[in-house]
């Protein structure tokens, strides 16, 4: 092989350099070599030209991205009907390149004259620095831009930046969250957007244009607005410290509206620093009071040990160690299960929980997600406060909603599962179809138990403590809850947290409404009472009156009472 190659090229050398070769032949060979090398060089140049012409210049778009849009472009956020909840608007920002500024004094003088809210000393400091680039003022108006432009100062320029605007001001604040000056989400859905890829996109330099797919939330702006108005009215009427409310779709887990008053305007994020303006529904944990009795009853009914006909002794206060468990609406007799629910009997529910036992109680609450931190799209969440050692006394008190603090959104998830046929669906702030929800759902109680719970809740609105929330036409079912707030380590008799959970319509549940009032005051027209049935329930009624038409719930006036409509009807199907 080597010999063959040597043999093949052996003739080249003598052809170019050999003395005994014909001159003419040698010349032709030399010229041929030169031609070949030139052809090669030109072929390379030509190929490179073709390559440059065919492939687009990859540097060009980057150059545009560099000159403006420092702040990230964010996708629009829409409500479930396509109304804009958050969008980007381009605003100019003023910057300077100190090295290029000729006369600092003149620049300071002219700039402070045009933009009076600039601090002269700080401006002078910035302009005299050795830096290549300094911000002078972010987000100025187009008019100010014109004026500064007319000053004709060298070394002063503008960059168009994306500014986040929330057209509905405080309306949807706690769901949306807000952004910082660089348009990065720092709370709520805005932060969720960033942690789900937007931040990486921005780092890669692609997020400067507004060609991003908008995010659709489950929130309905009309419902949100109505809920907020009614909560503000309710808070003012009962002089409560705070009010909060949720409207949730029980079949999909979508949060259609969520308001926590006092709230803040995301256009002015400084307000969010105020501690009283936190979102009580996800970042606060509360003892939910009698609302939790619904969970206890569902547990007892689902175990099969207790039926709707079972009775429990509520003649005497339940003595446990040195504690006495009293009833608020004491009947001093043996109560049936529906009576325990409608009279909201602490003794009855406590006995019911004891019949299941500590282990069973704990396991049931765990199954309903009441003992673990609930995570949603919102980055803010709070861990439930559990008793350090869970003994029988804890089971007794937790049975009627004291001694276990959960986030109200968590309670909404649990109670939704009790009424929607027994499926626990994690709540979401994004759109979700029923099929998607079913894929996520976990069966926690039997469908029959869910029917019984809806019957009990409707019965409560017909004859029990939820009468004031029975809006004619919507077949509302509900449970009141009043808990005493802990002040200085003791339960206070005057500082109450009242809540109301409504399900509508009770026979074919579609929505769950939770209303919470923090320290409502007794009024003459509430006959000096400050319990849930007198304040949270009527607020829930006015909310339902306003939002039910927007939610597309058809009023019905000829529906028979719950015993017939829910119990008999479902019994015949199953």
């Amino acid at each position, binding site marked *: 092989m080597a010999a063959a190659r040597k043999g093949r090229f052996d003739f080249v050398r003598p052809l170019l350099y050999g003395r005994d070769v014909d001159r003419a032949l040698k010349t032709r060979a030399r010229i041929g070599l030169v031609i070949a090398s030139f052809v090669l060089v030109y072929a390379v140049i030509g190929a490179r030209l073709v390559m440059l012409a065919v492939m687009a210049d990859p540097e060009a778009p980057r150059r545009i991205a560099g000159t403006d849009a420092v702040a990230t472009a964010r996708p629009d956020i829409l409500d479930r009907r396509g*109304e*804009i909840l958050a*969008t*980007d*608007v*381009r605003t100019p920002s003023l910057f300077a390149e100190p090295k290029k500024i000729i006369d600092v004094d003149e620049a300071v003088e002219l700039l402070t004259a045009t933009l009076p809210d600039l601090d002269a000393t700080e401006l002078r400091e910035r302009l005299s620095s050795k830096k290549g680039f300094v911000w002078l003022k972010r987000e100025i108006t187009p008019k100010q831009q014109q004026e500064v432009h007319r000053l004709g100062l060298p070394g002063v320029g503008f960059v*168009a930046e994306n500014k986040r*605007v929330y*057209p*509905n*001001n405080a*309306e949807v604040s706690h769901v949306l969250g807000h952004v910082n000056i660089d348009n990065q989400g720092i709370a709520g859905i805005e932060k969720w957007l960033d942690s789900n890829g937007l931040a990486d996109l921005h780092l890669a330099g692609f997020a400067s*244009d*507004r060609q991003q797919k908008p995010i659709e939330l489950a929130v309905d*702006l*009309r419902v949100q*607005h*109505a809920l907020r*108005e009614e909560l503000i009215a309710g808070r003012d009427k009962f002089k409560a410290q705070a009010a909060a409310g949720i409207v949730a779709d029980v079949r999909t887990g979508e949060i259609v509206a969520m308001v926590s008053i006092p709230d803040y305007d995301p256009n002015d994020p400084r307000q969010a620093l105020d501690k009283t303006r936190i979102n009580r529904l996800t970042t606060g944990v509360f003892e939910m009071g009698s609302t939790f009795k619904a969970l206890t009853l569902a547990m007892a009914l689902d175990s099969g040990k207790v039926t709707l006909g079972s009775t429990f002794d509520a003649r005497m206060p339940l003595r446990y160690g040195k504690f006495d468990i009293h009833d608020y609406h004491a009947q001093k007799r043996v109560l049936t299960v529906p009576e325990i629910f409608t009279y909201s009997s602490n003794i009855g529910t406590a006995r019911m929980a004891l019949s299941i036992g500590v282990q069973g109680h704990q396991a049931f609450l765990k199954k309903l997600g009441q003992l673990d931190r609930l995570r949603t799209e919102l980055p803010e969440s709070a861990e439930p406060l559990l008793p350090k050692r869970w003994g029988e006394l804890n089971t007794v008190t937790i049975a009627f909603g004291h001694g276990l603090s959960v986030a109200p959104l968590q309670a909404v998830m649990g109670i939704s599962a009790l009424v929607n046929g027994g499926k626990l669906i994690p709540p979401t702030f994004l759109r979700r179809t029923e099929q998607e929800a079913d894929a996520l759902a976990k069966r926690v109680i039997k469908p029959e138990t869910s029917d019984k719970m809806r019957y009990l809740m409707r019965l409560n609105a017909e004859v029990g403590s939820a009468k004031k929330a029975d*809006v*004619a*036409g*919507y077949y509302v079912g509900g449970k009141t809850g009043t808990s005493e707030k802990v002040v200085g380590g003791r339960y206070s008799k005057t500082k109450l947290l009242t809540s109301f959970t409504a399900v509508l319509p009770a026979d074919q549940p579609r929505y769950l409404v939770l209303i919470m009032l923090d320290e409502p005051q007794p009024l003459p027209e509430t006959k000096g009472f400050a319990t849930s049935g007198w304040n949270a329930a009527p607020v829930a009624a006015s909310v339902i*009156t*306003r939002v*039910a*038409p927007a939610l597309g719930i*058809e*009023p019905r*006036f000829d529906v028979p009472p719950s015993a017939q409509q829910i119990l008999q009807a479902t019994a015949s199907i199953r």
Partner: protein
Amino acid sequence: MRLLNIVVIGALVMAAAYVYRIKFEATVQAGQLTKLRSDIRRERDEIAALRAEWAKLDSPSRIEGLAKRHLPLKQIDVTQYDRLDNLPERPVQLVPDNIEDPIGAIIERTDESTGSIPQGAR
């Protein structure tokens, strides 16, 4: 040989001229492209600003405030909602539309049916 050289030189000059024209046109086109791109961008920004303004003007709290101040409207009562099926049938029209003298036409019709209300019209 000379002829060939002349032809080749001519071809070269023509090719150069052609390439120059293409290059020039491409530059013009590229300039237009950049301008159109920036125009589109500006339009998009303006649309976004207008949409934001519309959303602000359209926000329920603003509309409610205006309605409360200027209109004597009250909240709709539950009983004011009904289903379309519950709507009664549209009454039978006594006279066809676009007639000059509707009352006269009705009188004419009632005359036909001997003074009683025509059947089917309630």
